């Protein structure tokens, strides 16, 4: 797999700490929903740094968009979130990962569980599902720190309101909207249980978030006797 030159075509601020970069890659091969891409930055003196980011755009869009969350002590993400401007050149390699991927031909219901910026690859699945007018039942459980830090909040709400096959459960770990009645705090087993498809639905489950988030959720899913092979996980950070 080779490095391809890319230009930042546009940048959209998503939250105070995250931004979506629209990348123009002349010969982009396209991607599957859930895949990620390596991004390489080169300094003027030739120093390079590589990180991997989840793709947020729908697979049928033909567009490569990554949504990057700033790690305060990071080397690459502060540049991508705060400094890089449209016209900036970088390189990409990918798309990568063929397992944490939703196959639109698979008719099983899809359970998405995202924590924080772990919602990004799930968003690619939701967008692909929506753009194809797929009727495969989708459920998203999204645990965000606060409404201000929830990624794609308006878009997810709008898609859920207009797509009968997409059901969304929000949960907030630090701060909730003013009219919120559900408990605020770390995702609980009760919230998870209420959001899941019934076991008999035979859903395939995608979990993405920080390691502690994914460990907790995946352990609960196993306790609930969800078959191991139907749980796919991806973790960020570390």
């Amino acid at each position, binding site marked *: 797999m080779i490095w391809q030159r890319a230009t930042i075509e546009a940048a959209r601020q998503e939250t105070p700490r995250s931004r979506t970069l629209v990348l123009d890659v002349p010969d982009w091969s396209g991607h599957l929903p859930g895949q990620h891409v390596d991004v390489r930055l080169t300094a003027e003196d030739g120093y390079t740094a590589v990180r991997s980011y989840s793709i947020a755009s729908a697979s049928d869009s033909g567009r490569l968009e990554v949504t990057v969350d700033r790690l305060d002590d990071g080397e690459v993400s502060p540049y991508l979130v705060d*400094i890089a401007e449209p016209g900036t050149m970088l390189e990409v390699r990918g798309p990568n990962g063929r397992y944490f991927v939703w196959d639109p031909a698979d008719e099983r219901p899809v359970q998405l569980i995202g924590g924080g910026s772990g919602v990004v690859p799930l968003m690619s699945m939701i967008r692909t599902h929506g753009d194809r007018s797929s009727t495969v039942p989708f459920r998203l459980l999204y645990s965000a720190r606060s409404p201000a830090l929830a990624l794609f909040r308006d878009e997810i709400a709008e898609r859920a309101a207009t797509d009968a096959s997409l059901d969304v459960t929000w949960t907030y770990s630090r701060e909730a909207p003013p009219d919120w009645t559900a408990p605020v705090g770390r995702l609980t087993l009760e919230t998870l249980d209420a959001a899941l498809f019934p076991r008999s639905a035979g859903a395939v489950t995608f979990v993405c978030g920080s390691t502690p988030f994914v460990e907790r959720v995946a352990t609960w899913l196993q306790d609930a006797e969800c078959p191991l092979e139907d749980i796919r996980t991806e*973790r960020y950070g570390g």
Partner: protein
Amino acid sequence: MGFFSSGFSGRRRADTPGLPPGQYLTESFPVLSAGPTPKVPLDRWQFTVATEAGVAHRWSWAEFRALPAEDVTTDIHCVTSWSKLGTGWRGVSLDTLFEGIDTSAAGFAMAHCYGGYTTNVPLPDLLGGKAWIAFDFGGEPLAPEHGGPARLLVPHLYFWKSAKWITGLRLMAEDSPGFWEQNGYHMYGDPWREQRYW
């Protein structure tokens, strides 16, 4: 004209010996797994080496832990670009486990794990003091999310080859792709040659 990302200077520019191309250093220990962390009770834990001829050599946890173990200090390199230098492990060398096992017909091994993960490694990369079944990390029992009770440790290859939750090695005459190898990763995975993807 040089190609560069305007305004990017980067931080860790000191040359780090021991850092393969395209890798960056991390002090933490990121977790990467395709599926959930399986629960592996020690009283049911088992490690098996199955030969080409169909002979199976088995160890219970107690039998495995009764084998001589070694302390290993090594660098580890993940295909997602992080490297961690000087990590401390304790484990049983595969040379010890393979004592008296006929490997003459085998050129490769498939690691099998609790949870269903598999990965393929050439047999010469597992022998000769290059690989271990590790059960301690940093002086503590290996945490489940990092592969405990025991994982394969074959640190000269990208870390997806160091299969977590290992339960056996099946010897093979021909190479055959494991889980990530079927999903886009390289058959061998040498970090110094950047064999990440095929």
